């Protein structure tokens, strides 16, 4: 098996004295969609924040394209090709949409191809072209989510991480977000997704992991876990059969 | 080191210092004068330490309360309400700044946090100085007020009052922190929103610490006024009365009770020596010292491991982890 795009092994992370993650280990292959599901406070976001360089792990190894990267700052990680769309989108509300996107391609590697990437992002998200001079803060939740994903794509990431993309969005918008995830995957973008909406998360995922109080409890194919009675009981309440 | 031994140590040190004037001839020995100034700085540093170390509020207005305390004595003595080294007068010179601290503190502290609060207190200091300069006959304007120096008898009363102030300030800080009040203060310092969430009336504790700090600063101001017999706005509202205590606290170790004591004694000695040994460039010395202290000794002497195993000071780093000042991580 070609060595994986990303390999994480026995990752431990602390917030002050409280330990948030216990010996996390998993790998991500190029071109796949991976989901991390779990209840609130299970540490899902902490995994992404650690991989993106916002949080420094206490111990453990993170290998990306074969080289060790744990502990590096977020600005270095994005240059290597790991880009995160943070929880709450993290747009620069005072700047215009276009400015947000231009900053997306801030790293030297991305800056060279900035114009070409912008065209690609515009095709993906037509609304961006129409609203490019508008202040990012004055847009609907859905549009902001599009811009946030677009901005992350501007850095031409090898691995795109999305933290709760569907948070606070209307169901119709959530559907379009997941369609986008599917189209991105078709265009060979590897995706690591953290999502509350377990049904959608597992449907779109090739593989998924279940996180519970900072530990990985289950892993498996997306559709297998979707059908697993335990998952249904624990996370989906009384989901009607077969939808 | 258990609590009893630590209090024992405090009493022993006080007794030691109290004996000094018996050995040295207090009138002519420069040591006695040096210790007098060091004690004043200990009291001032503790009053800043209380506000910054235990509630995380950086106040740049200590000199305002210090000067106010001095002026209370000068005006009171001029109008024969207060006598020479009269305890009632000194308490009054602590109360009035305390009242001002409450009056100004409530609006200032409820609205402003972090560097805005620091700016506000700096502004407060400047306003008080200017008002006292424009104060006309009552405040003696820019000439300041003269006090009859003939009432000076000897150095001893000053020495013991200063020693008392230093011990009183350290004890108050120590007791406040050890009491239940202390836990509320520390919770405010570490995380205001969390403290407010579980019922700590954040504003009340901040204003309380600010007021007690102002009271102590006022007392020090009054002692200095009695000593110099001449209260001059440029001197008593000078920024040094805020700058030096902050530096002493930072160097000693903010948020600990012994830190400011060590910082005050150490720095007073260093500044005096700088003046004697390198007269021309000594002003540069204080600037260099501030910068070096902050780069190499951010947590203060008291938290260095070597010190720690003797005094068992705080293991954690300096509490005023001023995210609000430097990094912007929310």
């Amino acid at each position: 098996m070609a060595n994986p795009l990303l390999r994480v092994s026995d990752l431990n992370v602390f917030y002050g004295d409280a330990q948030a993650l216990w010996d996390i280990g998993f790998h991500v292959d190029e071109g796949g969609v991976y989901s991390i599901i779990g209840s609130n406070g299970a540490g899902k976001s902490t995994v992404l924040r650690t991989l993106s360089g916002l949080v420094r792990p206490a111990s453990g190894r993170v290998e990306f394209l074969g080289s060790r990267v744990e502990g590096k700052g977020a600005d270095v990680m994005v240059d290597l090709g790991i880009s995160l769309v943070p929880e709450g989108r993290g747009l620069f509300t005072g700047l215009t949409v276009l400015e947000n996107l231009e900053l997306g391609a801030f790293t030297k590697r991305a800056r060279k191809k900035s114009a070409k990437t912008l065209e690609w992002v515009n095709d993906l998200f037509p609304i961006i072209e129409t609203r490019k001079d508008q202040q990012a803060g004055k847009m609907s939740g859905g549009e902001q989510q599009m811009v946030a994903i677009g901005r992350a794509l501007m850095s031409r990431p090898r691995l795109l991480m999305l933290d709760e993309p569907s948070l606070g969005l209307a169901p119709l918008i959530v559907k379009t977000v997941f369609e986008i995830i599917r189209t991105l995957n078709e265009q060979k973008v590897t995706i690591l997704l953290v999502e509350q909406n377990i049904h959608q998360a597992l449907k779109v995922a090739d593989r998924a992991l279940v996180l519970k109080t900072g530990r990985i409890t289950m892993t498996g194919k997306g559709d297998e876990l979707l059908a697993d009675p335990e998952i249904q009981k624990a996370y989906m309440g009384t989901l009607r059969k077969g939808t | 080191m258990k609590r009893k031994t630590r209090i024992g140590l405090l009493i022993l040190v006080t007794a030691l210092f109290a004996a000094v004037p018996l050995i040295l001839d207090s009138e002519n020995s420069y040591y006695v004068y040096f210790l007098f100034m060091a004690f004043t700085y200990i009291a001032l540093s503790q009053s800043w330490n209380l506000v910054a170390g235990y509630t995380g509020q950086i106040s740049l207005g200590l000199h305002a309360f210090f000067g106010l305390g001095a002026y209370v004595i000068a005006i009171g003595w001029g109008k024969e309400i207060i006598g020479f080294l009269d305890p009632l007068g000194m308490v009054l010179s602590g109360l009035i700044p305390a009242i001002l601290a409450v009056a100004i503190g409530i609006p200032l502290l409820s609205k402003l946090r972090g560097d805005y609060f620091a700016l506000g207190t700096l502004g407060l200091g400047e306003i008080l100085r200017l008002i006292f300069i424009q104060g006309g006959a009552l405040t003696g304007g820019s000439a300041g007020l003269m006090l009859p120096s003939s009432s000076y008898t000897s150095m001893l009363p000053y020495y013991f009052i200063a020693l008392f102030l230093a011990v009183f300030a350290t004890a108050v800080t120590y007791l406040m922190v050890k009491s239940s009040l202390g836990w509320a203060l520390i919770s405010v310092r570490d995380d205001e929103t969390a403290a407010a969430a579980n019922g700590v009336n954040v504003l009340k504790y901040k204003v309380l610490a600010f007021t007690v700090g102002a009271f102590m600063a006022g007392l020090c101001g009054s002692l200095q006024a009695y000593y110099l017999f001449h209260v001059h706005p440029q001197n008593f509202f000078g920024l040094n009365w805020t700058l030096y205590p902050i530096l002493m606290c930072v160097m000693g170790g903010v948020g600990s009770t012994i830190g400011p004591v060590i910082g005050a004694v150490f720095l007073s000695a260093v500044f005096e020596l700088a003046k004697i040994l390198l007269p021309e460039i000594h002003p540069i010395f204080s600037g260099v010292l501030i910068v070096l202290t902050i780069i190499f000794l951010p947590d203060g002497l008291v938290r260095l491991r070597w010190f720690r195993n003797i005094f068992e000071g705080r293991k954690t780093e300096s509490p005023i982890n001023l995210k609000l000042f430097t990094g912007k991580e929310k």
Partner: protein
Amino acid sequence: MFYLPPIDILLQIMINGILFGAMYGIAAIGLSLIFGTMQIIFIAQGAMIILAAYGTFWLFHFFSMDPYLSIIVIFPVSVIFGLGLYQVLFRRVARAGKFPSLLIAFGLMVLLENLMSVLFTPNSRGLRTSYTAFGISALGLKISFTRLMAFIMAILATTGVSLFLKKTLIGKAVRAASENLESATLVGITPHKVNMVTFGIGIGLAGLAGVATATTYSFGPYFGFVFSLKAMIALALGGMGSVVGALMGGVLLGVLESYGAFFLTGGWADVISYAAFLLVLMFRPEGLFVRSSGSERP
């Protein structure tokens, strides 16, 4: 003796206030840039201005280089000095995230002032050219040439900095970092690079203010502290972190003091400016000129 003077005198006071406020404005712009990203009040800005003023004076004294011409030397040197200063002093503190850089700025101010006093002797220095005490009279008003140049420099500096922030990528990065540092790192902006850039420009602006000071005043080593204080007030009036707001804050402060000095005495003018400062801090911390666009500071 409170009488309303004729309109031309009121206008003259306004003009004097605006020109005079521009001096505070240049210093305030530098402060607002530094505050924007590094969140510190750089209280040593006044000492930096006087350092640049001495630079202008010595260039004039030894090479008889015209002060306004010497901007091409003073500005770049100040920027480089700012970059170096950040690396040596502030980088350690910012990373440690532990200590009030305000205290380091304070120490730096005390250090610089005394260093200048020892190196350049405490005597006051004044620059003398054909235009240093030259007044232009236009439509019945008297305008001092050097203060007019200072005003023009303030306008140019503000537009320059605004263009930099709006048009260049680095400028956008600075705006992004001062708004949301975490997201900024996620797109690849290194906090230290951004801080260094703003610090460099901030000290560069102090250089400009230094040239303006050298041509307008006879100055001494301790002349700068008042500039720092008043620039801070201008910053608070104009709104923390907004460049145009800082200039407007400076001009407003100048006009306030100018009228204060005329109707009361000089001494009271300062009390008014500090009182305005406290009131604005308490009731409109985001400043008078910044539309409270929701990014209200703590």
